[in-house]
Structure formats: C-alpha cells, structure tokens
C-alpha cells in the first residue's frame, strides 16, 4: 500500500485529478454548510446578477444569479451531489451487470460466451446517447430514469473489459491448481480469478464515472434527465441558452464544473492505470 501511494504521487496530473475528486466529494457532502443559499431559493429582485467581481455584481451572489434569481454558486455546489450520485449509481449498475456477464462469458466460454457477447455486440452497435434517449423516452424523463439509461448504456463496455481480463487469467495454472484443491465454480470465478483481473475493471470504473457524469449532463441538457428545479449541471446549461449573450456566467460556471469533474476522474483513472499495471507491481 505504501508503494502504491509512492508510485501514485510520482504522477503529478494523477494527484491533481485525485484532489479534484476529493474536492468534489467534499462539496457534495458539506453542500448545506458551504452553499450560502438553498439551490431553489428565488430572489426575483436580483435576477441575472453578474458574478460579484463584475460590474453590478453583489457580494451575496458569488457567481451571480440565473433568470429566477437563484444563486449560481449554491446550485453548482448542490449539483455536485447529483453528479456524484448519478456517477455512482449508473457505474454501479453497469459494473454489476457487466461484471456478471463478462465473467460468465469468459469463464464458461463456448456457447455461453457466444450468446452473451452477441447481446453485448448488439448493445454496442447502437450509439450510446441514442440508446439512452430510447430508454428514457420509454421510462419517462426523470433523473432516476436517466441513471438507469446511463447504467444500461455502460454495460457492454464493462462486459468486454471484464471478459478480456478474465480470459487471460483463466488459463493460468493457479486457477487449475485451485480447481484441483476442490474449489467450486463460484469460488474460482469470484475469489480466485476476480482479484487478479480487477485492475482494468477498477480503471474502467473510474473513467466510466466521468463519462456517466457527462452523459447525465447531456441527457439533462436535452430535458430528458433532471427536471426543474433540480440543480443539475446539464439542466443549468440548457436553462441558460437563451441568455448566452446577456448572462454568459450562467453557462460558463456549470460548464466549468462539468469539465473539471470529467477531467478529475479521467486523470485519476490514468494514474491508477499506471500504478496498478501488473508489470510494475512485480518489481
């Protein structure tokens, strides 16, 4: 573990990513204490107030207000909660299904493999955002359904990653050795093989978190995700479209939040990939 941290620290951008992620989690947990206003509180007198350092800015609205006079800073902070929730739940969902499917396909091989991987191929052949839109339009637009949609869209990627890494481990002699000691299939799959195949899965999950956040923002932007007055970053972007020339801060700061979140998780994923590489581990 100490080696692990040491290796990770060497990668400066990975450390940056880690801090962005920690900051985000901090914001999400302590949102009610950090945010000066409630996310849905309207102050109609101070509609479209610019950020405090610009002309006409007010000190109680740090990043300005939107067209209903809601404090942008508070909404972005509360938005971190939603983005993290979306990421965690949809990644959790894709991971649990993808892991099971990939594991079964690789472990049993043959017809099982063929059957599962063809389903995966079919899912992959449909563009992700389109598939998500289909799912949402069947289930109806809401944040929960958007999470389900993103979760389903992610399944094939995880299934492929899991399958590939299980395939390489499955043939190693320690698996046969464990079978010879009388291990059952379940035990072989989840206790013997999985820990050794986990590295790419962890990396994929971290990166997948970023794309889940981005996709959720995309769906909300299209009006298929979070519904008003939920302070979701993507929804905030779409609200601000008509004010793009008069109140650019409304589109800039939520966009920046999305950008930093995605960047943070991707940098962290990259760093983890370098550190967890089994070739470096053996040294």
């Amino acid at each position: 573990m100490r080696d692990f941290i040491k290796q990770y620290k060497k990668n400066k951008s990975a450390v940056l990513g880690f801090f962005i992620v920690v900051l985000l989690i901090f914001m999400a947990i302590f949102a009610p204490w950090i945010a000066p206003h409630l996310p849905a509180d309207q102050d109609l007198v101070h509609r479209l107030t610019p950020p405090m350092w610009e002309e006409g800015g007010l000190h109680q609205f740090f990043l300005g207000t939107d067209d209903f006079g809601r404090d942008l800073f508070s909404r972005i902070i509360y938005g971190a909660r939603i983005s993290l929730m979306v990421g965690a739940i949809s990644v959790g969902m894709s991971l649990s299904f993808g892991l099971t499917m990939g594991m079964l396909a690789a472990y049993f091989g043959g017809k099982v493999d063929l059957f599962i991987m063809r389903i995966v191929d079919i899912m992959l052949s449909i563009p992700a955002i389109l598939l998500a839109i289909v799912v949402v339009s069947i289930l109806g637009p809401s944040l929960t359904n958007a999470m389900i949609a993103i979760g389903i869209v992610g399944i094939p990627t995880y299934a492929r990653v899991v399958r590939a890494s299980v395939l390489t481990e499955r043939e190693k002699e320690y698996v046969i050795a464990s079978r010879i000691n009388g291990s059952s299939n379940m035990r072989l799959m989840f206790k013997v093989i999985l820990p050794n195949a986990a590295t790419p899965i962890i990396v994929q999950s971290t990166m997948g978190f970023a794309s889940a956040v981005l996709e959720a923002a995309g769906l909300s932007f299209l009006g298929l995700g979070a519904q008003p007055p939920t302070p979701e970053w993507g929804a905030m972007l779409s609200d601000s479209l008509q004010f793009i020339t008069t109140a650019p801060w409304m589109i800039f700061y939520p966009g920046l939040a999305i950008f930093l979140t995605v960047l943070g998780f991707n940098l962290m994923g990259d760093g983890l990939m370098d550190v967890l590489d089994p070739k470096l581990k053996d040294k």
Partner: protein
Amino acid sequence: MNLIEVKNLKTYFFSDEGEVNKAVNNVSFEIPQGKTVCIVGESGSGKSITAMSIMQLIDHPGRIVGGEIILEESNLLKLSDAQMRKVRGRDVAMIFQEPMTSLNPSYTVGYQIDEALRLHHKELNKQQRFDKVVEALDLVGIPDPKEKYGEYPFKLSGGQRQRVMIAIAMACEPKLLIADEPTTALDVTIQAQVLDLMKKLQDETGTSILFITHDLAVVYQIADEVVVMYRGHIVEKASAKELFENPKHPYTKALLNSIPKPGVTPRKSRLDTVDDTVDYLSFPKEIR
C-alpha cells in the same frame, strides 16, 4: 496393494471438423500404496492428459470416452461433480511444472495453503489451521515458516514456490499426489532438493506418487515403477530397475540411447535421436 487402478482409459479430443485425436488410448496401469510410478514420454505422448483424466479436469473439446479409474474401490468416473470436488485436494492432490504461475498472486502463501484445509477439514478452527499451515511450511523446508505465512508469492524464489505448492498439495495428506513435471522449471540443484523432499514426505505419510516427466535422470532417482508412453499408448511398463537395466521395447531403447553417458558417449559426437520415421506402435507392447 494397489491404491489406484486405471483400466483401459480413453481420453479423446474432438475437433469441430469431426476429427478425433486419441490423446490417451487404452491406457492401463496401477499405483501401489506408498510407491512412486513415473510416466515418461516425449511431448504430446499423453502423459499430462492421463493425469488430468484422473483428476477429471478434461475440458471441452476433450472427453473421457471409456475406461475406469478405481481409487480404493470407487470408480472416479462414476462420481458426481460435487463428489469429485471432495476427492480433489483431499484424496488426490497435484503439483505443476510452472511454480511461477501456479500460485495465486493476489493471496498470501499461508492463505493459499489454508484454503485447502478450509475446504476439506471443516472441523479445524482458525488456530489449529494456522498451526497446520506453519507445520506444512516447515515440513517442506521453508525457513521462518511463521514469517512466510503472510508473504505474497512474488517474494519467493522458484524453488521456494514449488515447495509451497508441495505444501499446499500435502496439507490435506492426500492418498495420491500427482506431480506433473514438478522439477522441469527448476535448476538441477533445486531439482534434487525437491525430489528429496518428495521422497521424504512419501516416507513420512505413505502417499503414493504419480510422477510425470520426460527427464530420465529424474525417473532413475525417484521411480519404483515406470510407464513409458508413446502417442497415447503405453509401450512398456516395468519396475525402474528392470527398465534401466534391460529395456525391451524399441522405443524405450531409443529413449535411453538418446541420453549422453559420461565416459561412454564420445565427446563432440552427435547424440542418438528417437527416429520419428519408425512406427513404434507396430512393435508388441512390453508390459511386465
């Protein structure tokens, strides 16, 4: 008394095009209680498949198509999967050629020895199992067994890993230990140590050993009886002494001739090879 009897074992591999590869064809031999039987033969002669057949770990596209494997009066081929899982590890254990990949890199050495005990000896508690694991590590000659309990495999040398593999295999005191070329990946000094260790353990526990190798020097050191396999068939079966002193089958003779003999084989001369153009199966089998 024979611990295990293999009768007319046939393991075939079936290709999608309908071809059949008779990897093990009508093989019969028996392993007496507390003795070591060696299977020798070149690559692809069906040695390892015979061992895997005893364990019933033949995967698709292979299948055991006929024969009997009788371990103490029960036919292993008739057992259900669940019953067979109990036999594996408890009654029959196995060690492999490649000590570098035979241990799971994610778990400590102690944990992996403990695993077999936990599966087959449910009556032991944690402390008793720990003691047994340390005892097993000590028995196979690992220094500081208590310290090594928590080590991960990558910190051990090849010889030490093979010792750990033997400790895992012997932890449940199996009746039969199958060793599939356990010394091939080790250098000669370590090889001798491992062979000595196996002999010592056999004397102490009375385990029978089925030893698979292509190294006749190893056979000479460890075998009580030798089975010579060629293209899925047994061509000669004899006690080790008889086989080395008086090989009868032409294939066995060819095999023995291909080893250089100090003082006999002239320097820088070419060694004899096993002539591939001869159909050794056409000669009568020498089964003694």
